């Protein structure tokens, strides 16, 4: 009797667990689904009562408006250029610094000081640097250029890359590269041939986070770009979120297009996320 009651309580608990988690998943995902579906609806259907879960007469109007009239493709291309440039520069620069921090003992406790300083630059609100950065870039004639925005993103991403890569380098035993160096490789040779292949998953994970961060970034892009030729995706999409006269089709289509690459990367990151968690969980 007691056993059945215990089993009943167990079952109730399980049902409740799945119910709440299911609800959470629904709340997290339904709004995204809703945006995607809405992007295929006609203006009339968008306002229909009751709302339809699937578009009755799917239409591409929103996407046509987005890409033909509003040249959204150009902004995506701009994003690609800026994200790509800043990704390469910050990954190379940051990884080298991280290698140095993880392998060499610097005098005057510089490892700790530099590490903490680099981290702290990451924690501060970007808006705090935006005013002086804007003025500096203006003086350098770099406002509204790919170079200016990429430069800012490099600086923005560097602390993260250094911090991530340092922890990945630390996990690789120094014996391996020392063995390589005994065999006659130089330090950089050992880094390239021995360490780099081992740290590749870490590089990939770091790069994906940098890509997502940079691609999503809004504030710097808003202030440092002003013409459609340079404007990145978030700024171009922001123009669609009008407050009075909203072009619902173009807006939801823009949201959908902007979301897709990120969902893809988030999916890729999932693998590294689990890997990262197990790498670090028990040492």
């Amino acid at each position, binding site marked *: 009797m007691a056993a059945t009651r215990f089993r009943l309580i167990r079952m109730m608990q399980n049902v409740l*667990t799945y119910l709440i*988690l299911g609800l*959470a*998943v629904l709340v*997290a*995902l339904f709004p*995204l689904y809703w945006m995607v579906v809405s992007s295929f609806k006609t203006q009339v259907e968008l306002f229909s*009562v009751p709302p339809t879960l699937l578009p009755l007469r799917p239409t591409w109007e929103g996407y046509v408006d987005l890409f033909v009239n509003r040249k959204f493709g150009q902004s995506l291309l701009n994003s690609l250029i800026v994200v790509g440039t800043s990704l390469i520069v910050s990954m190379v*620069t*940051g990884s*080298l*610094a991280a*290698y*140095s921090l993880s392998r060499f003992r*610097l005098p005057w406790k*510089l490892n*700790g000081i*530099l590490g*903490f300083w*680099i*981290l702290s630059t*990451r*924690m*501060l*609100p970007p*808006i*705090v*640097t935006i*005013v*002086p950065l804007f003025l*500096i870039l203006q003086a350098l004639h770099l406002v509204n250029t790919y170079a200016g925005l990429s430069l800012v993103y490099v*600086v923005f*991403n*560097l602390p993260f890359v250094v*911090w*991530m890569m340092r922890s990945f380098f630390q996990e690789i035993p*120094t014996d391996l590269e020392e063995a390589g160096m005994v065999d*006659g490789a130089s*330090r*950089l040779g050992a880094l390239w041939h021995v360490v780099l292949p081992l740290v590749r998953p870490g590089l990939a994970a770091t790069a994906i*986070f940098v890509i*997502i961060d940079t691609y999503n970034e*809004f*504030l710097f892009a808003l202030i440092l770009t002003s013409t459609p030729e340079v404007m990145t995706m*978030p700024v171009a*999409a922001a123009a669609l979120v009008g407050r009075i006269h909203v072009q619902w089709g173009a*807006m939801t289509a823009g*949201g959908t297009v*902007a979301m897709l690459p990120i*969902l893809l990367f*988030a999916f890729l*990151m*999932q693998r*590294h*996320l*689990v890997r990262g*968690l197990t790498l*670090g*969980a028990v*040492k």
Partner: protein
Amino acid sequence: MIGSSLSLEWAPSPSEPYAVSAGYLGGQLMRVSLGSGRPRPSRREPPIRPLWSGWGARLGEDRALRYLLLAPTVLLLLAFTLYPYLYALRISFYAFQYGRPTVFIGLTNYERMLADQTFWQSMARTLLFSLVVVLVELVLGLVLALLANREIRFRGAIRTALMQPMVLAPVVVAIVWRLLYNQESGLLNYILDNILHLGRASWLGDPKLAFLSIVILDVWQWTPFMFLVLLAGLQSIPVELYEAAHVDGATGLQVLGYITLPLLNPTILVGLLVRTVDALRMFDQVFLLTQGGPGTTTEFISLFLYKTAFKFSQMGYASALLLVLFVVTIVIALFYIRLLGRSGTVER
């Protein structure tokens, strides 16, 4: 914004049977240790190499190399983070004319700030906002993480699903909620009016509702962060502890109060730190959805700062404002880091 985060590595040491570590923090997988840079026990000084490998020459190479590798990063950060702060400090003592700091006015900008009602209100609003969203996200995230930590199926799928909102661009989030909050055809108003018969709400236009609407949006986007961080923390608690408690006949609540929560404490603090620092700079979604309105009901400090600098071109006053925001952020971050240090698991 994803990019902003700090997480802490509970540095493993032989004396600790386990180490809570790594986290998926701030939308980022990163491990952080405070007061870093201390070499790990496993790392040794490089052994002396035999002469025929030319170790003398190589040692010299390494000495230069260590600085050479660091130099670009350090120089870039000095030039584009430290210098801007100093520059901001300088121009906060100046009045701007034609886009240049021309007239030295001493502390006038700071005096003006002290007397500026709008500033104080937006500061208070920002602090209130941070407090509310962070607490709600903590509670919801903790409940979800505890549930997902039970022996359940589909944990991986649930985690994947729940992490979606927080990787999205703020502009996409704004679009999603623009659609949901829309007064005429929005889904929320459809539910309120046609199903619950409560009438329609002007989510973003009603001064009484706008703040709440932004809170809801933030909770939607960032509860997953708390969930993932806390779940990672929960999963690093050794099963043996639970088994021992079970053998001793502890009730579910006792396990929660005496094992789970105390061991989760550092993870909770990290989550609070990252989210608070993040919430203090709330800008994107507010800028996109309400521009601080209606009235000033959603005008947070970063928006006020933006308007001062780029709408009214008062760069000097804006610099004074941003230095204050800088100090407030540091004070709050240090407070949490202090707590973390006290919780004993962080290497300092």
